[in-house]
């Protein structure tokens, strides 16, 4: 169950990254260079994943 939740969280993070990246590339031309773009992609992915992990509802023990 835990592995499934982790997988869903990763997929949701990837979807959020995929949706926000075109907007970032469109508004900040400097990010169109590969190093800067990949760095921002990694940061967005990491921040989103951590955010999702934090707000994900947990079962009370």
């Amino acid at each position, binding site marked *: 169950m835990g592995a499934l939740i982790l997988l869903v969280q990763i997929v949701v993070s*990837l*979807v959020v*990254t*995929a*949706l*926000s*990246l*075109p*907007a970032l*590339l*469109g*508004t900040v*031309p400097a990010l*169109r*260079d*590969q190093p800067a*773009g*990949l760095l921002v992609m990694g940061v967005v992915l990491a921040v989103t994943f951590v*955010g999702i992990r*934090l*707000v994900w509802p947990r079962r009370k023990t």
Partner: protein
Amino acid sequence: MKSWTLRIATIVAVVLGGVIEATAQTGETTRVHRASDPATGAEVRVSQSPAGSIVMEIAAPGVTVTKRASNGTVTTVVRVAKDELTIEASRSAIIVSSGGRKVEATAARLERLGEAQALIARSPAARQAAELLGRISFGQFSPLTLAILSTRNMLLGTAEATAARGELGARIEGMATEPRLMRVSAQQERVQEDAQNSQGTGSSPTDCWNKYVKEALLAWAEYEDCMKNSGFFGDLACALLYDMRAIGAFTWWMKCVAIS
């Protein structure tokens, strides 16, 4: 703990929503044309403002050339890293600024024209931009080619500019004397690109990134254009199309770099 995470999540959602909404609303100019050159990865965008000024922007990795024509003045700005060159040409004067220096040549001070040309020739930004513009090609009969060649001609040094002027003149003469029907280069490029994309493999990570950026920018531009003229349900349709295109592009990029 739970209330804090909820607050953080709400703040992030509000800020992200605000940023996306604001960026979608700010575009006042109308995009007239957009084209990409596969050889250099450069993207050319032509847009028109409500006031009538026309802007042509050529953006390639590391080099940006912006040409704005408004009220009888053509301003060309070349940016390469931190180096910037500005050439402002009107009926009454030519003003060149580069590296903290500014030269203004007018009808009364015509001798400064050589100085202005020398300032352009010394600019590393002008050299790199001219080199880039020389490699960009949208086909012999594209109006973009003429605009790019004339910009390149302006950025070249004296001796090279004379040769480039000849090349430009020959092209214009060729266009005038040889009218004929032909398949435009954009279609040919698209066919080649589609063939490469369908193959998927064989691209370097840089190629994958450049293609992804191109597709992501097109998706974002389409979303912005779509949002300008739509109601509530239209907005939903725009968002849905954007979501599909953005996720599709991202999935393609992951496949291209073989992460999936």
